[in-house]
């Protein structure tokens, strides 16, 4: 494909068309799995989970549960006909703990009853006896014992020791980075319907129907071709339904197999938040060798990531943290190390950004610390360390930084946010305001697009044109609210030059498009859009030949436009051509396929070109903090995000704003809190606080970078947008640090934990005030 969007006015692609289900959403007519009409005989299920963080399972006795009226069945580890293993990457991750329990909330079994209420009660009536052992609840303890779920990873380039030894200044620091619950509004759910020959149909709220298919088959002891998985829509995913949905689907399928009845398993919110994984909290420590002008010459960062009890996706999450620890900065000598610490807490998993946010907040905190300790302007320190726009400087993992837009996004955001004026105003305000302090910060984001693991970067689509000219679209991507279905439909409508209503969006189905990758890593529209483009283009080519025959012109003269097919001043409708194509016995259906080009990755050396391209963004945030109570508020945020040539600016804008607010939540109000027994105590919205409407910056200016087609040949030169803007919220974190820094002497860098709750802010304010008089410029 060779497309230059600057010269082409497109009919459908590039238009801000509303989400395909928007009118159904507002009317309550969009059906989620729990809203589907239930088949006769449907049972409801509930998970039985571990009450303790670590121990030997002595007994798991369902007698008490089965004695409850209307309770029908129980399945535990001994009732699995196939394999008790649902590890998404590595084997050895049980569906139900069988000998050792490893965290509070770990699934041990599942019960089915005629009603949901009875199932919930029954789940509590299963007798669980565990011989308790001392749990490991924090990453430092695990690290000291070198207890990791997978081998540690290192991204390295250059001579770090020499760089640190010869540096003009050594900067050292530590940052605690909190985790995050996905808090998708629809909790995890699956509806399993048994069929003949041991077949199983599963409606699953999953980002990864193929993985659900494979693991359900594996657990049931069958082959993949015996399981059909359908996903029409999820009520939010954010990475939380990438690997974790498998647990729910497999448990439902087990019961469906055992009872020969349809089984629906929906998790209560508290169970969902206890049993399923979250964003990895990490502790980062670093040493940076810098010049007096702020140039970082050598950087050593070590991450202790809370893997939880199993690997799940921790390996690639750490890889992405390490490959984003440079963010936008060329660091000649770098060593980034990540340890996957094994703890007796839930196994952490994918969450929007997938390690990238942890890497980026670490390096941005380092940059901020360097600037403060050298009393330099943080923006100057950023600029001096940027990857050069023309140099093609290479990242520590070996990928040249091409099509670099860092300077463009930075200069644009500094101008549109009126940085200079506001910086002066805020400094003046802080000089005369003892209690309320303001802070301002700018930061860039460079985010690599593609799954780090090269093999995942492939997609399929299935397009049918029917004889009435209507189009059926199916692809491997799933809809979790991000607008993927509409974007891909726009691509197909564009190819055929038909109205968007002509294209029917259909549920993701493993029987239509097989062997798909998770809808994850922001790649949904890139890879599925291109697969659908290829399918539609192939059909269009065949239809063009039919049209040429029918209209008696050479194929080159056939033009598809506005729902019609033209040859000179003659035309027929798209529907008529479809009919002619059928009559001519020419295929009107195509399975499209796409594999992302150019990428390669060596998982042993962590070198290669993992990313097809980079996307860029920048943000400026202004906050106020109350130095008495530690409360904070984001007063203004200005965001600029590179979407390439956006397929749908309305959808992309929604992704940018939503991701930013989600990122703000991660860094401000969302705090996971475990007690000394390893019980997570923030397992519902009354205790786990995601942002509300008033938390959105009062003044919120969001823009998509204009005239910025992707330098690589992506679908209509668009760029991925799902994850990158989440990291723009690091600007809020930096602005809070800026406000705290105003309470200390010049040369002192704040020590702030993430999330910046009122408690953590107050702690940092008190700390910087206490250090203020004792320390001069470091």
């Amino acid at each position, binding site marked *: 494909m060779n497309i230059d969007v600057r010269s082409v006015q497109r009919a459908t692609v590039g238009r801000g068309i*509303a*989400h395909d*289900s*928007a*009118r159904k*959403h*507002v*009317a*309550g*007519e969009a*059906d989620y799995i*729990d809203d589907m009409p239930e088949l006769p005989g449907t049972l409801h299920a509930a998970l039985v989970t571990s009450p303790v963080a670590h121990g030997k399972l002595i007994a798991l006795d369902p007698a008490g549960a089965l004695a409850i009226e209307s309770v029908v069945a129980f399945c535990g580890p001994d009732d699995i006909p196939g394999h008790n293993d649902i590890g998404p990457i590595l084997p050895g991750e049980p569906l139900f703990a069988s000998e050792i329990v490893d965290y509070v909330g770990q699934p041990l079994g599942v019960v089915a009853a005629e009603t949901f209420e009875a199932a919930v009660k029954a789940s509590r009536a299963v007798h669980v006896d565990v011989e308790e052992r001392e749990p490991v609840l924090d990453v430092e303890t695990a690290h000291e014992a070198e207890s990791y779920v997978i081998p540690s990873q290192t991204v390295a380039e250059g001579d770090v020791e020499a760089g640190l030894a010869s540096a003009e200044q050594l900067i050292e620091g530590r940052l605690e980075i909190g985790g995050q619950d*996905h*808090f*998708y*509004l*629809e*909790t995890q759910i699956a509806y399993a319907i048994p069929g003949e020959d041991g077949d199983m149909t599963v409606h699953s709220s999953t980002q990864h129907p193929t993985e659900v298919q494979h693991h359900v088959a594996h657990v049931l002891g069958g082959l993949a071709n015996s399981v059909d998985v359908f996903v029409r*829509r*999820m*009520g*939010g*995913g954010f990475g939380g339904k990438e690997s974790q949905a498998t647990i729910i689907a497999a448990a439902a399928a087990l019961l469906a197999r055992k009872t020969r009845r349809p089984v629906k398993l929906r998790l209560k*919110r*508290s169970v969902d938040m206890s049993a399923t994984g979250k964003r990895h909290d990490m502790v980062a420590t670093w040493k940076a060798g810098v010049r007096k002008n702020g140039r970082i010459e050598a950087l050593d960062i070590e991450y202790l990531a809370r893997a939880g009890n199993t690997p799940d996706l921790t390996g690639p999450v750490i890889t992405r943290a390490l490959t984003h620890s440079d963010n936008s900065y060329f660091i000649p000598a770098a060593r980034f190390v990540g340890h996957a610490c094994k703890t007796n807490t839930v196994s952490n998993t994918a969450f929007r950004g997938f390690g990238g946010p942890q890497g980026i907040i670490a390096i941005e905190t380092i940059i901020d610390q360097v600037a403060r300790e050298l009393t330099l302007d943080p923006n100057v320190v950023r600029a001096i360390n940027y990857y050069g726009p023309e140099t093609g400087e290479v990242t520590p993992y070996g990928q040249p930084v091409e099509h670099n837009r860092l300077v463009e996004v930075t200069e644009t955001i500094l101008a549109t946010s009126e940085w200079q004026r506001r910086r002066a105003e805020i400094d003046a305000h802080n000089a005369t305001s003892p*209690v*309320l302090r303001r802070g301002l910060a700018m930061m860039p984001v460079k985010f690599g697009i593609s799954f780090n693991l090269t093999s995942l970067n492939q997609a399929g689509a299935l397009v049918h044109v029917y004889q009435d000219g209507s189009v059926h679209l199916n692809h491997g991507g799933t809809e*979790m*609210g991000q*607008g993927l279905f509409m974007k891909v439909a726009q691509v197909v409508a564009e190819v055929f030059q038909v109205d968007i209503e002509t294209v029917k969006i259909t549920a993701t189905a493993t029987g239509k498009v097989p062997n798909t990758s998770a809808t994850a890593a922001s790649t949904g529209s890139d890879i599925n859009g291109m697969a659908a483009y290829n399918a539609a283009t192939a059909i269009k080519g065949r239809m063009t030949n039919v049209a040429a025959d029918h209209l008696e012109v050479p194929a080159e003269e056939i033009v598809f436009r506005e729902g019609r097919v033209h040859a000179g001043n003659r035309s027929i409708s798209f529907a008529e051509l479809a009919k002619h194509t059928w009559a001519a016995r020419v295929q009107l259906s195509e399975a499209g396929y796409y594999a992302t080009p150019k990428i390669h990755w060596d998982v042993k050396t962590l070198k290669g070109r993992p990313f097809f391209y980079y996307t860029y963004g920048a943000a400026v945030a202004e906050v106020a903090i109350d130095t*008495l*109570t*530690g*409360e*904070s*508020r984001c007063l203004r945020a200005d965001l600029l995000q590179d979407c390439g040539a956006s397929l749908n600016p309305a*959808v992309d804008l*929604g992704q940018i*704003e*939503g*991701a930013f*607010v*989600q990122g703000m939540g991660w860094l401000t*109000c969302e*705090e996971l*809190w475990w007690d000394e027994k390893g019980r997570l105590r*923030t397992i*519902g*919205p*009354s*205790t786990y*606080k995601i*942002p*509300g*409407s*008033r*938390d*959105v910056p009062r003044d919120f200016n969001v823009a998509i970078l204009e005239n910025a087609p992707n330098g690589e040949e992506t679908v209509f030169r668009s760029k991925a947008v799902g994850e990158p803007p989440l990291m723009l919220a690091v600007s809020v974190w930096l602005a809070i640090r800026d406000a705290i820094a105003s309470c200390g002497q010049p040369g002192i860098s704040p020590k702030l934990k993430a999330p910046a709750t*009122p408690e953590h802010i*107050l702690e940092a304010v008190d700390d910087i005030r206490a250090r203020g008089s004792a320390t001069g410029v470091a």
Partner: protein
Amino acid sequence: MNAETKAAEAIRFVLNGKTVEFAVRPDTTALDLVRLHAGLTGTKEGCAEGDCGACTVLLRRGDGPRQAANACIMTAAQLDGTELTTVEGLKHDGALTPLQDAMAQNGSSQCGFCTPGIVMALTGLIEENPEPEETAIHDALAGNLCRCTGYRPIVEATKVAAKAKPASIARSVLPPLRSEIAVGGCVLHQPGDLAGLLELRGRYPDAVLLAGGTDLGVARADYHSGWDRIVSTAHVRELRAITATRDEWTFGAAVTWEEVLATVADDYPSLATLIRRFGSTQIRSMGTIGGNIGTASPIGDGPPPLIALGATITLASRADGERSILLEDFFLDYRKTAMRPDEVIISVTLPRLKDGELFRVYKLSKRYDQDISTVCGAFWLRMEGDTVSECRIAYGGMAAIPKRAKSSENKIIGRPLDSESTRAAVEALSDDFSPLSDWRGSAEYRMKAAGALIQRLAHDAAGETVEVMAL
């Protein structure tokens, strides 16, 4: 009580314009009734604890407006004789309302799961306040979480819709309330007057005394225990009364917080600000002042300001009649009160503020809206010139009960509210409190924050507002 002899065998109410009856146990949650029994699946379950708003419906009781409420923690017991509207009841002749239309066109939904609840919350707002300011929109959305959009397009769509003329709302005739309903072994009593309530309370001291149900309903929604007998306070005439004299306000125990809010905004603006952060519209439209006190939570936001204002509480039983005590004497220990098993709370009486009196209440939490207080501090001062002549300070979140800070009070009384007395009052807090550490804050933070609120008071008294939300 009226003269019906036989208990009714179904809950009867108006659902989306039609009178319906459901023979469900009265302790069935309204959400289960709507989704499972009525087959209306537009209303979603997001949390089953009244905090996410995905289950928001509109409820009309008596002559009142349609108010947003959480179906998940409401029970069928609260529906008899009301009008309930779910998202399925909004469309007019098959067309979306202007709000729904504006939301669909403005990118106000992504995954769409929270959307019906948000539509209902905002519909409730616009019906009462057709051209809401941004602040009112945030107030209305405080009980609704959206994880996808970042809210801006929802707020924008509300402004767009507010300019369109909403369709007129047909008010249904409400079916009369029944005094007793018994289904499936669960009996609901709905007395209409105090005598009836006291008789039932005396006869069934173990029955669930159900006011707004915003606390009890959370346990019910978690399917922990069924209720076999419920005595509702919601329709007791005397408990629904608000009376004002020159010196005081008296709120019947079954007056909802929304009704309190509408009443106190002029007299106690600081209390009104707190109440707006107290749960959400959904919670406040159901939750009552008496229930908030009776449930005796150490972190309830009602008691600290009421104690600081010097509120008294009136209790009654059939055997011994009425008695009034200071609210601060009502709380004995964690979830333990001075209320006897045969008693009910009848009313709460608040003195009006007089010249020279200063009242402020401050709440600290991780999130501004719909969060439970880490610390809530309330302050009432009587000034004579520059000197504090009398003072009451009460905190929530600092002890097993809402409690006065008498040591701190003593450091202020007889002195001006200056940096010296403030510092002494802050230091004295450690004589009054040794708070716990939990997910809302460590003991250290709670102590520091409680002191910070005294310092904030001093700034406030000097006419200087120092709060980030005021910026």
